[in-house]
């Protein structure tokens, strides 16, 4: 199979894939001898870089997807006027943050950080598939443990959980009180 043809197939797969394309999913599309996805992606990105496209291939949730380049967001936003993305509440964001950094953990552990009952918000996050049940704890009562999902990574544009901005250390809290000062761009 010629290199050029492989790139075309990859483009077609990226275009059609309902979720970020990874090696396993791409293998399903090839009958035999599937090429290495990361190599092809590199070639495709080089090509796009040269040709100056309005969209790019980005890595998210362990796979690749087409996305418009941030430079062109103003135009696209005017085209698509209704914001489709669900806006998460403060309670939802807090609970997600705790789970993301400390997973897997039980509802009790989440509540002891937030200091409030979390059963309602956790139920919503489960049904939105931003969280999942990641098993049960060994301790008394064997409580359910919560963890983040692929949808969580996609929602926040992360490739892996380890791409989350570093959690501030307790000692840093007193040094600067500027919120989000160490926010790093995890999408890169």
């Amino acid at each position, binding site marked *: 199979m010629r290199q050029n043809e492989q790139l075309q197939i990859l483009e077609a797969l990226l275009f059609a894939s309902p979720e970020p394309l990874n090696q396993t999913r791409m293998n399903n599309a090839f009958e035999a001898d599937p090429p290495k996805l990361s190599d092809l992606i590199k070639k495709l990105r080089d090509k796009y870089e040269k040709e100056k496209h309005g969209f790019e291939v980005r890595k998210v949730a362990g796979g690749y997807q087409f996305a418009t380049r941030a430079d062109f967001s103003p135009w696209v936003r005017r085209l698509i006027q209704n914001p489709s993305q669900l806006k998460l509440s403060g309670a939802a964001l807090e609970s997600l943050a705790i789970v993301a*950094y400390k997973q897997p953990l039980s509802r009790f552990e989440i509540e002891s950080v937030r200091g409030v009952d979390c059963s309602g918000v956790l139920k919503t996050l489960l049904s939105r598939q931003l969280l999942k049940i990641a098993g049960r704890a060994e301790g008394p009562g064997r409580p359910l443990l919560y963890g983040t999902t692929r949808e969580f990574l996609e929602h*926040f544009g992360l490739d892996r959980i380890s791409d989350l901005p570093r959690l501030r250390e307790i000692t840093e809290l007193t040094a600067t009180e500027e919120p989000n000062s160490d*926010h790093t761009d995890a999408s890169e």
Partner: protein
Amino acid sequence: MAVNPFQVRLNNYEGPLDLLLYFIRRDEMDIYDIPIAKITEEYLTTLDQARSSNVGIAGEFVVMAATLMRVKAKMLLPRPELDDEGELIDPRTELMLQLQEYTRFKDAASNLDILANEENQLFKRTTRELLDEAEAIPGLYLKTVSLFDLATHFKTAIENRPVMNPVELHREIASFDDQKNNILASLDGEGKLRFSTLINKFKSKIEMIVAFLALLDLIRLKEVVVYQNELFEDLEIHKVIIT
């Protein structure tokens, strides 16, 4: 009654810790040396205001009020408590640690919010919209079901079971293999069966439980698959047709 424009509205806060953190940041208090008397007063005033405007106060806020007053009382004790090594115990330590931990995650939450907003500026080529549409029109598309959904449905089925008056104790016979055959025999001409139909066939709890276990085993053996059209809706058992 005139409304104080500077009144702190309780429902703007995620909880008692959030409210305390607001006071600390607003008045630039040192989190390592919280002026406990001042913050307790602020806190209680806010709660009183909420109470006088007939706002229901969540239990957590009341618990925190008690904690604050306990810490404040301990601070006033003439003889401070010492730990095993003879060091002074600051009664505020526990609260301080709790506030610090909460602050870290509150900041992490606002980082997440920023990430989500940035992500929302990009437009992805996915066919996810089709899936959203599937959710909008229930019954049109089938969705795969997790073990958890299955367990939830089992719970609903058990709870909806008519109440009976059990007096006699007798051994109920519900064999695992029989129930497996029973499920397979209950599939209709198209090889389908609704979960509720299956469960309603049984009168006793043990039969339902064995049937449920049998269903799990059939799924394991890949003899059937289970679909759900919509969240909380009935499950459909489909026979796997081997081609």
